[in-house]
């Protein structure tokens, strides 16, 4: 087979040589035969004549030889391609519209696939990547896969890897406060010291870890840039991590940022991590164990060996973590196998929206193609009359669609390459503020292949039905079947209408939903919090007096308060309460008495809380809580009883007097809105329920955060010193809305543009192909305005039908969304009326521009063209 393809390729590549050799061979045959005939006594002239007659028609033999080599279908395909190209060049309006419409849809789908590709399919640059595997336990309780291993299990596995493995590494994603050129929490990986050697990654500068080495850190290329400002003398420098000094021993090459989904800024040895966070080394299975299979081993063999290890150590595990088996899963990208499943479930609905856009484009194209094929009836009839079978006609029409698809794929790929990374950055910008560096999204050959496959699939769909219909009259070749021809024209017209209505309907759905999502995002953004998130920073660390003193000494700190839950990141805290005869849930917030000053929440009634109130059985409540519990009355002096229950700490149960009513605020997650049942219980710093400090600063700038982190690390190096500016928390919660709004709006606008361009192209084409008929109408006395109205009324009918189909569908989907979350606003006049109306107007405008051209048709010219 390969030899055959080689010969075919050589003949195709060196076509001139193939032809001349074929001619030489036949000429030799004729000359040799002539010599023989002359030797038999014929005159040279007779011999030449006889040999020519015996050989027969050379051109036919040549054709047979080409066919025998497989060149005939290549020749036909090349001819068809040239023909299709010329046809498209002669109709630039049609070709550009088709390429743009499909290209835009391919670009959108290409960007989505590029994102999926970057996380789920792209591989880190590893030696032996095809043998890279993850080790997973199977829980004895419920059969779920457990991605991690306990430290004891992981150590044992690394000490003595089962035979099918060439080597195993130990890895955990970690986040430590780092003090270098900047101070910030930074994500990295704690790894076994064989990590770099096993992965086959050679640091660009310096070296990887030596066995048993401690106190050393290897920076990633990003980490070197972010933490040390890309200092050329980085190797040998000291950085402080969680209060301990580490020496930089190497900088990894630019392409390698670890083997997990977020980019690691650094790697430290697992023993160092153990020294920094001994409390993390319990029984919980949180360590990734991965490695490489031996060349001759299969994942199944490896899983069998691993299962023996996994079940053999059950006695040392807690009940929840006992294992019944193990899996060895080949790795295909940065995501772990379990994470890929999760991603797929999230990506599916998004994929459906993008597929809808592709459907709009394909429907649009189908109506365009249908119009074009209908206009080529005469040409098809001539071809059929000279003997082209229907198969050939179909093939020619397909070739043209294929050519359009390839051009659209190229355009889509170029657009996707241009847009993918900026869109990705815009979507995950908030993660950057959480100190997570995400990887770059690159558009590679795989994305191009995906785009091309989509384009060809769309071409088959949008070209298939029209081509079938257009060639139906020549089912048996030769003369057209008149009945079939007229039926086919009627079918084409019906199909064209259906397609136009479908795509307009789909555009209405996409636009209305996009507008609803955007409206929700706007409402979310404008939500009043009751405080200024720019001036508040949460520091997640168990509060104590030393930390308060240290923080208050910083010039940037204007106040601190210990809290059980800080706003925007922690929800919950509901407890059962009794007010008079009523029993109801209230949201209990344990705060230090300084909380309201730090939050800058105005006091509305009663007195401000003070130090002595902590533990004095008094509470403050929010305005809405007061209105809800004691409508129309003064809440000061009223009582709230907290019965003994699990949600309360020791000594918290009892009767409380309301001494203050403060302004409302969003105290939980931002999506929850203003807390309508907030009760603030004053407790001193260090109370068991307190989890974090809330710090008031003039502005949460990088320098302020830097100072806070340095102070925290100095006082409590053993803790994570997790700093969270509330503006970041807010932005992080806005992100899903913004991403959804951006994507939906982009999809909606693209659909609108595609529909308008498509309608424009279609009406232009119809006007062009009906020139003669319209010319006759004008010649018979019709006024231009009447003809324009006639053309437009047809388009208007389809637009109205499209709206009639799209509206109820959009309404249905929005009701469905409403049933999922009552926080969503699912009716918005602008969305349901404004956008569809705009779509109708724009679509009508798109039809009007070409329709106006009918006014310029000179009847005599239109008739003469025939």
């Amino acid at each position, binding site marked *: 087979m390969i030899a055959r393809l080689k010969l075919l390729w050589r003949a195709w590549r060196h076509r001139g040589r193939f032809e001349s050799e074929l001619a030489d*061979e036949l000429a*030799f*045959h004729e*000359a040799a035969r002539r010599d023989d005939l002359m030797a038999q006594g014929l005159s040279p002239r007779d011999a030449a004549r006889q040999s020519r007659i015996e050989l*027969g028609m050379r051109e036919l*033999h040549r054709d*047979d030889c080409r066919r025998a080599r*497989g060149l005939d279908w290549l020749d036909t395909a090349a001819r068809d391609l040239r023909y299709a190209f010329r046809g498209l060049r002669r109709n630039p309006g049609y070709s550009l519209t088709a390429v743009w419409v499909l290209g835009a849809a391919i670009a959108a789908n290409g960007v989505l696939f590029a994102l999926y590709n970057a996380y789920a399919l792209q591989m880190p640059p590893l030696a032996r990547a095809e043998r890279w595997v993850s080790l997973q336990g199977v829980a004895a309780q419920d059969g779920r896969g457990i991605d991690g291993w306990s430290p004891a299990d992981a150590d044992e596995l690394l000490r003595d890897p089962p035979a099918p493995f060439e080597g195993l590494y130990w890895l955990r994603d970690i986040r430590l406060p780092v003090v270098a050129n900047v101070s910030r929490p930074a994500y990295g990986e704690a790894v076994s010291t064989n990590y770099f050697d096993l992965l086959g990654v050679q640091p660009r500068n310096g070296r990887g870890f030596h066995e048993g080495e401690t106190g050393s850190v290897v920076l990633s290329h990003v980490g070197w840039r972010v933490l040390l400002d890309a200092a050329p003398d980085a190797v040998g420098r000291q950085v402080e991590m969680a209060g301990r000094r580490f020496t930089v021993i190497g900088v990894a090459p630019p392409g390698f940022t670890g083997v997990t989904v977020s980019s690691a800024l650094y790697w430290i040895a697992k023993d160092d991590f153990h020294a920094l966070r001994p409390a993390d080394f319990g029984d919980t299975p949180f360590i990734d164990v991965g490695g490489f299979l031996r060349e001759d081993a299969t994942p199944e063999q490896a899983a069998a060996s691993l299962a023996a290890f996994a079940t053999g150590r059950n006695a040392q595990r807690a009940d929840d973590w006992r294992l019944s088996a193990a899996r060895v899963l080949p790795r295909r990208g940065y995501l772990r196998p379990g994470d890929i499943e999760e991603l797929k479930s999230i990506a599916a609905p998004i994929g459906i929206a993008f597929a809808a856009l592709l459907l709009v484009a394909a429907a649009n194209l189908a109506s365009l193609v249908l119009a074009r094929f209908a206009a080529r009836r005469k040409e098809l009839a001539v071809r059929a009359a000279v003997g082209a079978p229907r198969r050939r006609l179909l093939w020619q029409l397909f070739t043209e669609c294929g050519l359009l698809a390839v051009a659209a794929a190229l355009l889509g790929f170029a657009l996707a390459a241009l847009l993918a990374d900026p869109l990705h950055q815009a979507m995950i910008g908030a993660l950057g503020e959480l100190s997570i560096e995400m990887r770059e999204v690159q558009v590679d050959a795989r994305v191009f292949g995906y785009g091309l496959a989509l384009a060809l699939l769309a071409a088959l769909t949008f070209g298939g039905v029209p081509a079938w219909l257009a060639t139906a009259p020549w089912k048996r070749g030769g003369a057209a079947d008149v009945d079939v021809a007229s039926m086919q024209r009627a079918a084409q017209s019906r199909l064209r209408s259906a397609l136009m209505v479908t795509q307009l309907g789909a555009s209405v759905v996409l636009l209305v939903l996009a507008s609803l999502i955007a409206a929700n995002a706007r409402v979310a953004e404008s939500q009043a919090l009751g405080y200024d998130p720019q001036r508040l920073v949460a520091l997640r660390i168990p509060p104590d007096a030393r930390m308060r003193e240290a923080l208050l000494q910083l010039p940037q700190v204007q106040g601190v308060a210990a809290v059980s839950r800080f706003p925007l990141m922690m929800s919950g805290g509901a407890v059962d309460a009794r007010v008079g005869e009523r029993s109801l849930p209230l949201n209990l917030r344990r705060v230090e008495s300084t909380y309201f000053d730090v939050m800058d929440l105005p006091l509305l009634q009663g007195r401000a809380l003070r130090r002595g109130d902590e533990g004095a059985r008094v509470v403050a409540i929010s305005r809405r809580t007061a209105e809800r519990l004691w409508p129309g009355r003064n809440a000061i002096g009223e009582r709230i009883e907290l019965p003994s229950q699990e949600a309360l700490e020791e000594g918290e149960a009892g009767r409380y007097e309301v001494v203050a009513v403060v302004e409302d605020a969003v105290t939980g997650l931002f999506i929850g809105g203003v807390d309508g049942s907030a009760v603030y219980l004053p407790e001193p710093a260090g109370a068991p329920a307190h989890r974090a400090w809330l710090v008031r600063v003039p502005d949460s700038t990088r320098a302020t955060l830097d100072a806070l982190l340095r102070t925290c690390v100095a006082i409590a190096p053993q803790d994570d010193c997790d700093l969270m500016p509330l503006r970041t928390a807010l932005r992080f919660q806005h992100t899903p809305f913004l991403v959804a709004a951006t994507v939906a709006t982009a999809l909606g606008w693209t659909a609108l543009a595609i529909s308008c361009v498509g309608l424009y192209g279609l009406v232009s084409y119809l006007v062009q192909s009906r020139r003669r008929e319209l010319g006759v109408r004008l010649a018979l006395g019709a006024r231009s305005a009447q003809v324009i109205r006639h053309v437009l009324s047809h388009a208007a009918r389809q637009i109205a039908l499209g709206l009639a189909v799209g509206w109820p569908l959009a309404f249905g989907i929005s009701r469905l969304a409403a049933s999922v979350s009552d926080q969503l606003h699912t009716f918005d006049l602008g969305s349901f009326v404004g956008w569809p109306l705009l779509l109708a107007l724009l679509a009508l405008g798109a039809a009007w521009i070409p329709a106006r051209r009918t006014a310029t048709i000179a009847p005599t010219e239109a008739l003469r063209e025939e």
Partner: protein
Amino acid sequence: MASSNLLPGTLDLLVLKAVSLGAEHGYGVLQRIQRASKGALAVEQGALYPALFRLESQGFIEAEWGVSGNNRKAKFYRLTRTGRAKLLRDQGDWRRMVEAMQSVLDATRAELLA
């Protein structure tokens, strides 16, 4: 050398056999078949070259340009290893076919009723 009187499907076998006797150009292949059959089998000249091209594409023969006895540039065909295997296989098939045909043609009523 007039019109073909070959049984359908036998041209490839004849060409393979002719080429197996040593590298030869197209015209020589034709002559070998004719001489070996003592003029009984005439291959249509136009059918020969597509057969050679097809067999070459299938990898049963390979070609190389050389110089003929008359000092002309000619394309010589030679049998490949897979071609030799095919020739042996096809020869066996042909012989079995001839024997079977012969048995049927020689059959008598008495033999068939026995």
